[in-house]
Structure formats: structure tokens, C-alpha cells
């Protein structure tokens, strides 16, 4: 039986993790390689690097970081942010990503999902959707890091992404992002029930119970967690203990000596 995944997201700018990450005792607190491997040791099932680079130079640096990370990380690595074309996807995969997520670029030109899936397989193409509840209650798709509204309705857009080749949906609630009041369960369920690929719930994790709810009530296959881990409020192992106690199948922490 497939276990429910806990995915840790790191915001990376150039060679550094940005946003405060408060691990104690780690020599280089902002080093993506060190943090990714540390989360693997804690039991993370996947790592996502969200590239928030502002320049081509920083973007090139991130690919080098991905390369160094892939050499030390033995769980899947997803790279997202600023990926526009199938060639960008190719570069990220070659650098060491196992999956690549596309967001704004897919809205601008949905064909890119098909182009990437045809070349590399649906299993490495993640459609990242930022959704926000609009007037009348429907969820709208927002792009450009949540700054620009589109006419797209989130559930229908998720279905189109899958039809065009996405093998997974990373669904972020803009309303809940950073609020730590729990994932948007209605949004998550609406999308998860409408598509036949895994859906990753994102935005709003404040405590372990929220992860359980995202799976049981939101029907998510996986949950994305960032702030509460980086701030040292909890650990992946502690989150998974609660999920396991709630009866969810989760991967046990492996012994570390390889």
C-alpha cells in the first residue's frame, strides 16, 4: 500500500536556502545540500527546492546546487520555480532533479506540460497550482507567485494539467499559505477527487493534526511542509508519529548507517 508522503520544501535563492531555517548545530544553516540531507535523515519522503532566484546567474547556481544535492540525497528531489520550457525541464533533470514542477509557464502555455511529459514521462512532470478562493466561492488560479489572478478555475485547470501530461499536482492554497491554520481541505478534496494523479496539499500546515486532516478529509496523497519545520517547531519524525497514530500508512524512519 502506498504510504502518505511528507515532503519538505526549501526556498532556494542561488546557493542558499532563504527564509529562516532554525536548525541548531548545523554548521552551514543556509546550505541546501546540508538541509536536504538532514531532512532525509529525519524521515522526509521527498525534498522540494523552490527556486526563487531573481537572476539568470542565481538560476544557474541553483542547478549546481541540485547537482551537489543529488549526489548526497537518496530520496526524490523536485525542483520548481522559473521553469518555462521543456528544455528548462531537461536542464533541471540533468542537474539532478527527479521531478520538475511548472506553474505560471503552464498557464501561459499549457503545451509545455505535454512537451515535458512526452520527453521525460509524466512521472517527472508536476503541475504546481496556486489557488485562492474567489468571489462566489470558486477557487481561482493565481500566477507569478500569487500576485496575478487568472480566469482559470482551479479544479478544471488541475484536470486540464493532468490531461496534458502532468503526473502529479502540487496544490497550494494562497489563503492558507503561512497562516498555519491548516490546509484548505475543501480545495484539496475538490481537486484530489477530480483527478487521477497524486495530489500534494500545500499551504497552511501548523501542526501534525493538519497533515492527518489533509489526507483523511482532503484526500491528499502527500503533504508539503515548510515553515513549521524550518522554525524548529516540530520534526518530520514527530509529524509522522502523529500520522501513524491516526492510522495512516507512513514510511518508518530508516536506520541511517548505509
Amino acid at each position: 500500500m502506498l504510504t502518505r508522503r511528507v515532503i519538505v520544501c526549501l526556498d532556494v535563492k542561488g546557493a542558499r536556502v532563504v527564509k529562516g531555517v532554525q536548525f541548531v548545530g548545523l554548521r552551514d544553516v543556509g546550505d541546501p545540500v546540508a538541509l536536504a540531507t538532514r531532512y532525509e535523515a529525519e524521515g522526509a519522503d521527498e525534498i522540494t527546492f523552490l527556486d526563487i532566484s531573481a537572476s539568470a546567474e542565481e538560476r544557474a547556481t541553483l542547478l549546481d546546487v541540485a547537482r551537489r544535492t543529488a549526489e548526497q540525497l537518496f530520496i526524490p528531489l523536485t525542483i520548481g520555480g522559473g521553469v518555462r520550457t521543456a528544455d528548462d525541464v531537461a536542464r533541471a533533470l540533468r542537474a539532478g532533479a527527479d521531478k520538475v514542477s511548472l506553474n505560471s509557464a503552464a498557464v501561459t502555455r499549457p503545451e509545455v506540460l505535454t512537451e515535458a511529459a512526452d520527453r521525460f514521462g509524466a512521472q517527472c512532470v508536476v503541475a504546481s497550482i496556486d489557488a485562492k478562493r474567489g468571489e462566489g466561492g470558486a477557487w481561482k488560479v493565481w500566477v507569478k507567485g500569487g500576485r496575478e489572478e487568472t480566469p482559470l478555475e482551479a479544479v478544471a485547470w488541475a484536470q486540464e494539467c493532468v490531461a496534458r501530461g502532468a503526473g502529479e499536482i502540487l496544490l497550494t492554497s494562497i489563503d492558507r499559505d503561512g497562516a498555519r491554520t491548516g490546509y484548505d481541505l475543501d480545495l484539496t478534496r475538490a481537486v484530489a477527487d477530480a483527478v487521477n494523479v497524486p495530489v500534494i496539499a500545500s499551504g497552511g500546515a501548523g501542526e501534525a493534526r493538519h497533515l492527518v486532516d489533509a489526507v483523511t478529509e482532503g484526500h491528499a496523497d502527500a503533504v508539503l511542509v515548510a515553515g513549521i519545520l524550518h522554525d524548529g517547531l516540530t520534526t518530520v519524525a514527530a509529524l509522522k508519529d502523529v500520522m501513524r497514530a491516526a492510522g495512516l500508512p507512513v514510511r518508518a524512519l530508516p536506520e541511517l548507517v548505509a
Partner: protein
Amino acid sequence: MSTPRLRVSVFDYEAGNLHSLVKSIETEFTTVRVERDPAAAVRDTDALILPGVGAFTPAAERLASGRDAMRDALLGGLPCLGICLGMQLLFDHSDEGPGQGLSVLTGRVTRLDAQRVPQIGWNTLEPTAPLDPLLVQSGLDTVYYANSFVCRPTGESGRHVIAYTTHEGDRFPAAVRVGNVVGAQFHPEKSSAPGVRFVRAFLREAVHIAAQRGTLGSSATEDVTP
């Protein structure tokens, strides 16, 4: 003279990321080379790795020129670890697209019979008895998958399944072994420490085989016998 090392070749279909895989096979007792030519990949080597990223048809096309040489080498006892697509290439054909596999095992590759496809995530192994030494040594029980297609062995090949996994209602071969050839539908190089141990256990087994055959670490010229 230095201690002979296990020569490991990785057949690269140029489909994707080999970093974690190459890193997992780079050990103090191995020398690793990546080969784009299928015939060269089975020359002067002690173990072959068929990596797991890509689609069946382009990989089969890449394989075509050296398919017979590779098949002969595997049937001749060359240790091989095929991962995901690499395991699928051990079989005859795939519904993913046209192309000829290595036919080291008989059977076809077909789409997972499940609602949620691709299967992405960690799933559990259901080993068959007797437990394969690689599973014993690695302690592997939950493994990472990213696949839409799985192998369906026919006839005698069904006896070579060393573990199954079930996705929704579809029970499929998670790993196979025929002689020194091992296939894993999951990604050991993405299955954290136990997965890396699985790869290392395969490599240590290959060391014993190469030592028995007297080929461990020998160079191309030393291979030439009068």
C-alpha cells in the same frame, strides 16, 4: 599494485538524471563508467547497471545496436541490476511503445491497472520465499516508485519474482532475479539508506562473482587469452 576494484558500467540512454545512481555505486571497491554504447557497456566490465529514467521506446532504440551482445553477456552470467525502466528492458516488449527488450525474462510490460497512475511514492515490498540475499542484507521494506508501467512475467519467468508490491488492486513484481541478473521496479537509489544498501549488496555479490570468474578488475589487455 593496488587492490583490484569492481568495474561497473552504467548504460546511459541519455534520458535523465544519473547523479544519485552513480553516487550510490561509487564505493571504495568500485570504478564506475558511464557508457552510451550498449555493446561497450558489457565489454571489460564486472557489473552492468541499467538505469531507470526514460521511456521504453527510445531506450530500446538506444539498446538495439548492442542488444544481442548485452543479452549474451547477461545470459553468460554478467551481474546486472536493472532499475525501473532498466528492469522492464529485461523483458520482451512494452505497451508503452514499440521496441525489443533483452528478453532475459519472458513477458510484457503493461500499464498499471489502477486509478492513480503514475504510481508515485513509497510502497511496501512483499518478498517471496526464500528471501533473496539482497533483501536480507539491505533490510529494504518500503521503497520509492515513480512508474506507470509494470512487468508481467509469463511462464517460467513468474518463478523469478523475489518481491511483489500492490498499488490499489494491482499486484505486480517489485523485483526479479534470474541468476546474476536482478531487476527492481522501484528506485533503490531514491529509497534512502536501505535502498543504497540494496545497491551495495548487489555490488558486493558482483565482487564475489568476478573473483570466482577471475576477472575482477582485469584490464582489457589482460582479458585477451591466447
